[in-house]
């Protein structure tokens, strides 16, 4: 099988964004995933978010591990550089890439097998280091690419396609991300584009470790009765904490939102995310409350979606390291090499 390029035929009437790009310019190759796979909807949401944010596609670096989900970077942002690394180890590669050039936007795409099992350590450490990235887990509760084994996010009691019951406790990556200090944490559902697109947009603009867990049903192995990650199950059990929309500084879209039910959240770069709270008591700035709420709803058998937590003044890894503003990859010998005189002095100290 070889890669299929998508024909680039632009309809003249397609809407363009500020950079003159159409939505098509943010697409990638034709997906080879199963028709109806939740992952494709997530790709579509990423495309939509990047288009609406007027991102120059070549300034986005998309990195992934191994799995169906990790294949998706091929299917969006065709003019961005991509990196399919090894299974579960996308976070370290992304961390390194981010260290080398802090000016690009880093999008890490992973699966629940990739991130919650083999890659759990790397997921955790990239979050706690505050790597400035959008970390999306396309969570289907199974290993899609290796044909349907349980992943570590599969709910206890859920059944595999062959009928075996999962007896292990699930790992909740959102709870972990909150606990590990992610400065932007959300959960969504691949079928809920209205919620997912602004959530991704917010994550892209967030200058810190942004984590989004997207429940993404696997039509091949996890869409049967007894699965807790099927389309039907999630639709029935979806409990949204808030609905959100993204507004850039220049083109505010405020009219759609009724006064009193919205909350403006100013990001580090001045852009604003406007949240509409379904639960008036819910505060997106309170990490502890988010953790409690998540646990509470989970105990009630519900899936919480929406933006659960955001730090409006996040610090990223570069801030922790005190690194220069210039990308490391453009520093040359004049900037980096101390030269022979310094070496002479160094030699003298060793005699």
């Amino acid at each position: 099988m070889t890669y299929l390029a998508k024909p680039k035929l632009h309809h003249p009437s397609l809407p363009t964004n500020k950079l003159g790009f159409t939505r098509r310019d943010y697409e990638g190759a034709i997906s080879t995933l199963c028709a109806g796979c939740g992952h494709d909807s997530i790709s579509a949401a990423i495309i939509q978010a990047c288009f609406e944010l007027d991102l120059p596609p070549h300034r986005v670096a998309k990195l992934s591990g191994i799995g169906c989900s990790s294949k998706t970077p091929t299917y969006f942002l065709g003019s961005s550089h991509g990196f399919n690394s090894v299974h579960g180890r996308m976070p370290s590669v992304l961390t390194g890439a981010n260290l080398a050039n802090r000016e690009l936007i880093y999008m890490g795409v992973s699966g629940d097998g990739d991130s919650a099992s083999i890659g759990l350590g790397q997921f955790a450490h990239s979050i706690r280091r505050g790597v400035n990235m959008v970390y999306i887990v396309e969570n289907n509760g199974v290993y899609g690419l290796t044909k349907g084994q349980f992943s570590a996010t599969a709910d206890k009691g859920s059944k595999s396609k062959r009928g075996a019951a999962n007896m292990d406790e699930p790992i909740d990556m959102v709870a972990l991300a909150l606990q590990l200090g992610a400065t932007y944490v959300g959960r969504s559902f691949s079928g809920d584009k209205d919620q997912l697109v602004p959530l991704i947009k917010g994550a892209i603009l967030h200058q810190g470790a942004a984590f989004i867990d997207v429940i993404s049903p696997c039509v091949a192995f996890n869409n049967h009765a007894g699965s807790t990650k099927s389309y039907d199950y999630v639709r029935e059990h979806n409990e949204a904490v808030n609905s959100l929309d993204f507004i850039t500084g220049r083109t505010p879209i405020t009219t759609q939102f009724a006064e009193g039910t919205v909350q403006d959240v100013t990001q580090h770069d001045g852009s604003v995310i406007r949240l509409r709270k379904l639960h008036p008591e819910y505060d997106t700035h309170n990490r502890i409350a988010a953790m409690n709420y998540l646990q509470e709803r989970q105990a009630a058998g519900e899936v919480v979606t929406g933006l659960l937590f955001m730090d409006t003044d996040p610090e990223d890894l570069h801030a922790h390291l005190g690194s220069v503003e210039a990308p490391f990859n453009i520093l040359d010998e004049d900037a980096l090499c101390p030269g022979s005189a310094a070496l002479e002095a160094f030699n003298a100290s060793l005699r």
Partner: protein
Amino acid sequence: MKPITAVNDFVIKFANVNGSGSASANTLFAKAILRMGVPVSPRNIFPSNIQGLPTWYEVRVSGSGYLGRRGGVDLMVAMNPQTWDEDLKEIEAGGYLFHDSSKPLPKSKFREDINIIGMPLTEICNREYSDPRERQLFKNIIYVGALSALLDIDIKAVEKLIGEQYKGKERLLTPNLKALHMGKDFAQANLPKTGLKIAHANSVGDKVFMDGNSAAALGCVYGGATVAAWYPITPSSSLAEAFTRHCHKYRVDKATGKNKFAVIQAEDELASIGIVIGAAWNGARSFTCTSGPGISLMQEFIGLAYFAEIPSVIFDVQRGGPSTGMPTRTQQSDVLSCAYASHGDTKHVLLFPEDPKECFDFGALSFDLADRLQTPIFVLLDLDIGMNDRLCAPLSWDDTRRYDRGKVMHFEDFESGKPFGRYRDVDQDGIAYRTYPGTHPAKGSFFTRGTTKDRDARYSEAGPDYVENMQRLLRKFETAKGLVPAPVERRAKHNTRFGVIYYGSTAPAMSEALDQLDAQGLHVDAMRVRGFPFNDDVGEFIDAHDQIFIVEQNRDGQLRTLVVNECVADPAKLIPVLHYDGSPITARFIVREVVEKLRMFNVAPLRRVAQ
């Protein structure tokens, strides 16, 4: 019993208790001799433990400049009752035992054939100091003072070193000097002179004294590394720590106080190498340092870097394996696991520095090689070079040197219409052009992956695409031959059928062994290999001799295997000389083995000799 007498040529060993503060006193001792113009080569011998257990510091004093380990001990400073029996045994007949005589020991605890020098160190300390820590620390300085009297060490040299160490800290300087003199005066008044002497000489020249890990780390600074990711492991941790130190000194932007470097202590070796690969993919020079167990963990990622062609630099400071093996002992036993690291068909570039100077040079060079070849580069140190101070030529740098960033397409190249295909072998050297992410809005983006791809980096499972790619990687490896440091040859005084191949930290013992063999009328040509893939000279050297000894510090003759594999040499011709008990190889060992094997040529079939 005839006491050993020697001037500027003996071995002294300190047996201490870990955590007693002896390390700095012992280094002071070694450096004082250096300041008198006499070469020394000290070695820390430390079991894998933290506190309270034994450590040793062995100093080879060699006026003729032999820096390898000699074997045997002429003067033992026995400060650890726990290892007393073992330490006593090591002393050569006619040698000396210096010990703390505060508590009398039965006669049976000594040997008849050595000279006993007792000094009531604890008694002196207890009389002089009341604080337990002071008693402990000054005891070390007092014995350094006593030794300087016993061995004729210039006390001014020691005083000067203490002065440099405590510059601006009068509170520490004065009591240290006082303790030094207390030891010296006591020894002069009460102890017999030894037959071992240090006399001023002029054999050190402008050489510098440093350990390989910090030299390699400085090489990384000079070579332009900006990202380092590592996970603690003996004996490589001090490399990362030294890099951090050097960077804080040389790489902080003066105007802003911001750092032109990032050091990440990762969660494990998998993440370390992942970070290195990510950074290098994005155009920053990056490295990790580790030891054998870390290399094992990095295998999958190393294969990715090889196949996706991402420059990466890995310092492997080897220790005793397999498994956790002898974590604080030295070996050269990761040669094969590095050369062929990862699954599938892989081959990697290796560099073998012999001393701190080459650790620095190869450290800097490794980044040029990685960028030029777009592949992992392994710099193979070992504990002996990495963690011991070694005398070597001063480090040097040519300010006109420019970094070789290899084949990179920049914005202007794309604008000027230069064609680009990530894995196209445009120059027939196996090396394709790459470009950093984010370079051009419309051109040059590609997907990096560990799966098979075509010349334009598009996913492909087509057999011919795979084969073409693998063949190109071989071409690239061929190109590497001309880029790695060439071997260094040393011809014997007379024409000879015999040759010896060696590498890395074996070098100082080897040069001494060659002199000794020469003195016995046994002529052997020598080749020190400095890089893999082997340059053509290695094959020619093998062809030019009937028998080649390959001297190395592992059980299985790993370099020999590599030579057999890659130079298509006749194994019967390659005679392994293997030292692998975890201690650095000695000239004595090499000479004994070579003489023994040469003798066997006259009586045994060749195949047996080669075993």
